[in-house]
């Protein structure tokens, strides 16, 4: 991605924060997985969270997406506290996530995976389905349109009927990405999206994430291991180690910072 392209990014420092965590702390028995974490993500921004294994990245993700409850601290989305909300409520509010190593509905077709997610914003009741009301037909048309558009975006239109579990790994990751997008989030959280991908696939994925962000105006948080992906894609990077935030700044600053080099790059 070029510098010129990055400067057109919709993220802007003076808009109100979309996601804001503060004092976020979570322990598992005696192990403090995350301590006093704070991050601000503005609408349309793309932020990276990096750190070695066990640094608290996944805990941070699980706290924001409602899979875990924090011991203390707050998570605000669009100004309202969400740290006590269920995972289902949080998706409805507009935060979607992917999983490390994907978690598709493998027995469903590619299109069905997206349709399952797209109906969140275009609901129809059982009664609608039985009677075939105009509402149902409208909802079904919208869901079909979204599904078609998203599959086109990741080049899976020709494989819409294929069982998701039968897709090659890279396609499964792309499918999971657009499935998350089908819930029409304002914040998309990607958990190690490039894990298991080669350099070419990783580059392709970066392009895709960037295109998605521009096209749909979503903010993105990427948790990664892969330094290159984070450095080229993100506007801002937070570095975690042993549950603590050790640095936050622009990619170039992160790369240059001695403490980061010590705890992170030393391990890489």
């Amino acid at each position, binding site marked *: 991605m070029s510098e010129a392209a990055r400067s057109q990014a919709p993220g802007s420092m003076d808009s109100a924060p979309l996601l804001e965590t503060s004092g976020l702390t979570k322990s598992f028995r005696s192990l403090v997985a995350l301590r006093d974490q704070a991050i601000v993500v503005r609408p349309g921004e793309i932020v990276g969270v990096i750190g070695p294994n066990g640094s608290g990245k996944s805990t941070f993700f699980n706290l924001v*997406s409602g899979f875990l409850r924090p011991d203390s601290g707050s998570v605000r989305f669009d100004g309202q506290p969400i740290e006590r909300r*269920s*995972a*289902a409520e949080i*998706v*409805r509010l507009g935060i*979607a*996530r992917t*999983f490390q190593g994907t*978690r*598709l*509905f*493998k*027995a*469903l077709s590619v299109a*069905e*995976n997206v*349709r*399952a*997610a797209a*109906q*969140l914003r275009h*609901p*129809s*009741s*059982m009664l609608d*389905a039985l009677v075939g009301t105009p509402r149902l037909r409208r*909802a*079904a048309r919208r*869901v079909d349109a979204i599904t078609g558009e998203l599959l086109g975006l990741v080049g899976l239109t020709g494989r819409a009927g294929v069982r998701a579990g039968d897709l090659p790994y890279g396609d499964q990751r792309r499918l999971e990405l657009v*499935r*998350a997008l*089908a*819930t029409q989030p304002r914040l998309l959280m990607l958990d190690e999206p490039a894990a298991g991908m080669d350099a070419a696939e990783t580059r392709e994925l970066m392009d895709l994430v960037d295109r998605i962000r521009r096209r749909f105006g979503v903010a993105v948080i990427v948790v990664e291991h892969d330094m290159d992906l984070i450095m080229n894609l993100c506007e801002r990077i937070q570095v975690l180690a042993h549950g603590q935030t050790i640095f936050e700044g622009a990619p170039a600053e992160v790369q240059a910072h001695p403490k980061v080099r010590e705890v992170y790059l030393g391990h890489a």
Partner: protein
Amino acid sequence: MNPGLYIAQQVINAISLGSLYALVAIGLSMVFGILRMTNFAHGDMMMVGAFGTLLLGFAGLPFWLAALGGIAIGALAGVIVERVAYRPVRGAPDVSLLLTSLAVTYILENLGILIFSSSPRNFPLPDWMNVALQFYDGQLTFTQINVVTVVATAVSLGFLGWFVTRTNAGIGMRAAAEDLQAAQLVGLDVDRLIVVAFAIASAFAGLAGVLWAAQSGIVEPHMGFTPLLKAFVAAIIGGFGSIAGALIGGFVLGALEIFIVAFLPSAVSPYRDAIVFALLIAFLLFRPNGLLNRSQEIKL
């Protein structure tokens, strides 16, 4: 007697019995697919459906309308049981759900005894349904009830097939059955999908109850017990949690039961159920994922 016709007759009997097993097994598997719970009260929805039909018949409705009403009452009963009994214990250890469903069985069957007494009642049918159709000098015989059974099952299965592949709710239900947590994560309203699953499963059981009562001519509070056990075997043969598996398992079991009696020496006939349950044990030991190899992990 013409052996070809004899075999044809047994195949007809097998399809008729298999239809009933399939109807009950599908509901059992559907609920298990999402909740990982064996719903022992599922068989009682047969009783509710049959008694509902009986009562509406007494009230003066024509049979087919009474039957539709009975099925609807069965579906409603399933939804109420889910809301009142199962939802509050969801998330508790699996054994709690299982015990709750046993408790619901006792409550429903005793409620049935309280209202209708434990003695069997006649299940009145319109005359045309009892008409036997005879071909080849009576070598091939079936009643209109058999025809109704097979047609009603085919229509129900057609509806189910359409529902789970063509509607958003059906796709959501299959997604929830595969990974409940991921389903919540893509925003599926899991509570609603569970209600829909119970409604369809219980309507199918209600229909099976009406057909069962029509074939046997009687209704009684414990009528769901044996079919439930058989449906359980059918679901395991096909692969517990899989709708297609339950369908296949139902017909395989129906055929097996009929053929054991029809084609093996008559000394073997009394052991029909023993053979069926031995097969269940064999499946659990050697092919726990069923014929389709699609079973979800079984938790009893």
